[in-house]
């Protein structure tokens, strides 16, 4: 082993070091990537139209089947701020950080997909 190392050039050693750093970083980076925060998926008629981060505050107008809805993300929570529907059940639901908001008349669904940090696959209750 010692002989083999002695026979290496500076470039070999540099390459080895770079590879070592890359592979070690792979472990840490993939761990970090898997622990990203939650995503907000906005679907219209069952098709995803927007995928947003729950960590970025924003307001978004979404065109539904019969009217539009206003989705607001603030402080890691999301709500249907306003909607052109009769019952406004979606608006009354308020802020959520998990689960989903449905505006049935407009076929708009706002789903908070859990961040991969959580080990929970579904919630009962």
């Amino acid at each position, binding site marked *: *082993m010692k002989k*083999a190392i002695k*026979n*290496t050039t500076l470039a*070999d050693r540099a390459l*080895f070091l770079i*590879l*070592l750093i*890359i*592979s070690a970083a*792979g*472990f840490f980076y*993939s761990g970090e990537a898997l622990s990203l925060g939650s995503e907000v*998926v906005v*679907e219209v008629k*069952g098709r995803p139209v927007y995928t947003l981060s729950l960590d970025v505050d924003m307001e978004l107008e979404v065109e539904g089947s019969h009217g539009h809805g206003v989705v607001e993300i603030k402080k890691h929570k999301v709500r249907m701020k306003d909607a052109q529907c009769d019952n406004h*059940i979606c608006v009354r639901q308020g802020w959520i*950080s*998990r*689960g*989903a908001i*449905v505006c*049935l008349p407009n*076929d708009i*669904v706002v*789903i908070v*997909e859990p961040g991969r940090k959580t*080990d*929970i*696959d*579904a*919630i*009962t*209750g």
Partner: protein
Amino acid sequence: MKYLSALFILLLLITSLSCGDRKRSVYRKTMPLMDTIVSISVVSGSKDEAERGMDKAFAAIDRFGTLINFFSEKSELSEINRNAGTRETRVSPETIDVIEMAVITAEKSGGAFDPSIGPVVKLWDFLKRKKPGGEEIRRVLPLIDFRNIVIDRQNSTVFLKNKGMLLDLGGIAKGYAADLAADTLIKSGIRDGLVSIAGDIRTFGVKPDNSPWTIGIKNPRQTGEKDEIIARIRLSGKAISTAGDYERFFIDDNRRYHHLLDPETGYPAGLCRSVSVIAGKAALTDAVSTAVFILGPEKGLKLAQDMGMDAIIIDSSGTIHSTPGIKDILSIEKGN
């Protein structure tokens, strides 16, 4: 140089391992069906296979939801209700099946779960905070009796003996739909997955890392984000349903009025905050969780065990009771 080559290969291996298993992944899709959110997760090596399976499962739920929709005049359930006291209604095998399971649960629970509770359910409106008067409730209570539901499997008919009777399958239909979806997925070649319809969850197989599915049980008195989950349970090939007094409710004069009505009194049952039941089929866990909620911790735990099921009960004081069969797969969250 040989050593370096070996090291190089080793590093490549490590790097590829650190990227994880790309072959089998969890695919997830959510749709609004049966007036709620339906979420399906499947484990598959191919996105196309996963999508095909999930689409078939959603279609099965949609079809079943149309058959038993209490609010749609075109549903088979509405036809059964319209024909109450007059004639039998010919229905689909799924409708017969779910009504039969509901009646069996009603029998086993001594009527604590009763699918003929419709007339009293109709008097309450939890969204509009509408509380019916005592006389109104007393008038409809005689209509509630599962023994007056006549099922004829041979002719595929259902008959409600008395005029004014109303079947309400709200306490079993979502669980049944979760089973239907899981069976559809299995038939289309998916071996591992999870179907979640509101609080009714049916699991089969395991996750890509061979671990069971982890289900969080909602805290019935959640105060913030951190205490949303009161317990977690690891399931594979099992179903779980939760009945809670926090789903549809209003508070009036310091009393909580919620949707879990006692068929005997017509008023909300008050012995529990939430009940989760674990068994093989979600239709049964759905119906039995309501029955256990109505019966309360003592009689409820006995019912679950007599039916070969497990249960987690949070009683009206917040104390957690559970059957011994789940002690190894249940973890209660710290601080609860």
